[in-house]
């Protein structure tokens, strides 16, 4: 291997990249755009659930219960209904996600020490939100009823659990999403970027000329990879800084370790792109293959959107082959937990394996030969 030739390929690749606005957009603008878009759009936090109240009791207790809903922070009371006939149309229009029905005799039953029934009608068309809203509603009612029962008596509850959440104290989903996004975006962008490079040279006829020179396959693959590795690392830095500044995600670990493991991960992803490019020999096919190979598996099976633990066994088995799965542990670990190699050793090793595999595949499949 000759450093001169390797650098010549890398330099040529950079010159071409500099003059190609489309690739530049893909390399620099798209990751930022995706991060901002996903960062703002995706949130699993359910807050401000739109709730309506059908209060048929009109008592002090019923008003107190509604206040408890309002002050919980999870519900916004958007309407008070007069008749039960209004509930159907309201849910159909999506005017409310939850309707709290307080039947007549609510206060009387409470005062008599009888069980006082309440009804919550939920819009189940968004099952996720409905389940969460149901949970919140039950919690609000439970708290309120224990207070109501104990009212006037100074009894200390026997158990007063105090939960404390670590690493993501506010349980804000963006704290999970942003570090995960860095991993997902890098996988997709990296493979997309390099998937074009070898195919483009075959399509334009420049590869035929290159193939007649003494440049080695490793020099071509590494030379094409290096500029994109640099770009990928810049993307990681930009995304991380944006995550911290814009989305206020904590960064507790070592930036150097993140760079090191990112470099391994990117090498694997870029190598995979080059492999696809060498196999496909056409830009359109290569881009499509790169999308199929990276986008869906990374988005769905890396643990970014859905918890791997709750997946069916078959999907869980496949997820072991999705490299972003391991990188996700790295980014979340470094961002949120501030852990180092003592915890991420396995992931680090797997990143190295991924890098070697990606590069090996690319070098073994790239031929200096026409077909």
């Amino acid at each position, binding site marked *: 291997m*000759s450093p*001169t*030739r390797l*650098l*010549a390929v890398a*330099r*040529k690749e950079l*010159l*071409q990249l500099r*003059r*190609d606005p489309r690739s530049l957009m893909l390399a620099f603008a798209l990751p930022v755009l995706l991060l901002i878009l996903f960062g703002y759009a995706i949130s699993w936090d359910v807050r401000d659930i739109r709730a309506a109240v059908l209060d048929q009791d009109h008592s002090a207790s019923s008003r107190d219960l509604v206040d408890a809903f309002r002050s919980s922070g999870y519900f916004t009371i958007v309407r008070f209904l007069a008749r039960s006939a209004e509930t159907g149309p309201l849910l159909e229009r999506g005017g409310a996600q939850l309707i709290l029905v307080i039947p007549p005799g609510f206060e009387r039953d409470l005062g008599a020490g009888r069980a006082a029934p309440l009804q919550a009608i939920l819009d189940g068309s968004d099952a996720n939100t409905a389940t969460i809203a149901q949970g919140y509603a039950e919690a609000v009612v439970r708290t309120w009823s224990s207070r109501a029962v104990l009212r006037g008596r100074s009894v200390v509850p026997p158990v007063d659990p105090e939960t404390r959440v670590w690493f993501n104290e506010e349980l804000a989903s963006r704290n999970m999403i942003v570090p995960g996004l860095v991993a997902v975006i890098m996988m997709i962008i990296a493979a997309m970027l390099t998937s074009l490079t070898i195919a483009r040279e075959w399509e*334009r*006829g*420049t590869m*035929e*000329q*290159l*193939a*007649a*020179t*003494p*440049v*080695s396959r490793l020099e071509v693959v590494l030379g094409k990879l290096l500029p994109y590795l640099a770009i990928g690392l810049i993307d990681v830095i930009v995304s991380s800084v944006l995550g911290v500044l814009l989305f206020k995600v904590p960064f507790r670990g070592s930036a150097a370790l993140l760079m090191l493991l990112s470099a391994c991960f990117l090498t694997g992803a870029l190598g995979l792109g080059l492999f696809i490019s060498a196999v496909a020999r056409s830009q359109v096919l290569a881009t499509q293959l790169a999308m199929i190979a990276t986008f869906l598996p990374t988005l769905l099976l890396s643990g970014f959107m859905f918890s791997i633990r709750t997946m069916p066994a078959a999907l869980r088995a496949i997820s072991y082959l999705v490299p972003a799965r391991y990188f996700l542990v790295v980014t979340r670990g470094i961002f949120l937990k501030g852990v180092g190699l003592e915890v991420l050793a396995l992931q680090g090793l797997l990143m190295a394996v991924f890098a070697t595999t990606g590069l090996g595949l690319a070098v073994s499949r790239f031929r*200096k*030969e*026409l077909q």
Partner: protein
Amino acid sequence: MPADPLLRVEGLTRKFGDLTAVAGVSFEVGRGELFGLVGPDGAGKTTTLRMLAGVLRPTSGDALMEGISMARDPERAKPRLAYMSQRFGLYADLTVAENLRFYADLHLVPRAERAARLERLYRFSNLGPFKDRLAGKLSGGMKQKLGLSCALIHQPELLLLDEPTFGVDPVSRRDLWLIVHEMVEQGVTAVVSTAYMDEAERFDRLALLHQGRVLALDTPSALQKGLEGEILELRTDRVREAREAASRLPAVRRAAIFGDRLHLTVPSASADGPAVEAALRQAGFAPREARPIPPSLEDVFIERIAAAEAA
């Protein structure tokens, strides 16, 4: 046969599925020779050159450059050869200077020699003033000159050029040939393909390719002498119909159209000329200026290809 061949091609064959593009081509190219691969489109010139350049694997047969097998070990030969594909193969989004530097780097041209080599190539090609122009913005002729310059930057022993003058204006065409002749004079061996028959006379020796086979292999003058019979040239109206009529005459072995003229292959131009002319006149044509001419290479090729197709 050259005494000390640089390149020995032995039964070179390449199949693409059912199609045999090159079928058992054999020839030798001597050191410092300007060797031509001549033939119509689809004759197998490009496929042959690609195999000689080590960018396409032969189905069978081999090409040996000083004993190095291009079928088995092409990488060992590549530092010593240069190949210019028919389609422009340089980077359109790199400048002239950047393309040259790239190829100089790939061939590890020593820094100390670069300036002198570049200066010489710029002088040859007249590309000096266009150094900073993107290669994609050059004219067709200049693109070819840049391709040739990139091929020559490492001073190869063997130069493989695939139709370098295809679609190039006459001035650039002459420039390109000047560069090639200059290189050959300095001892470079060159294998050049062309579909232009009028360029065939430039070669020291040439192989006439047709449908993947070598139909003839010799020096241009020997090929011209080897033609049986003589050529009778005449002007006529309605050349296509006249050719049809002439080719039916018993004395005419072959009739070919050259612009507004017919070239008729006859046993003897002086003996058969008047009879042929009379016969055409009788058939309603107006032949004139009939005269015997020495056979051009083009006549030889047409004759050979027609004979091969008849066989």
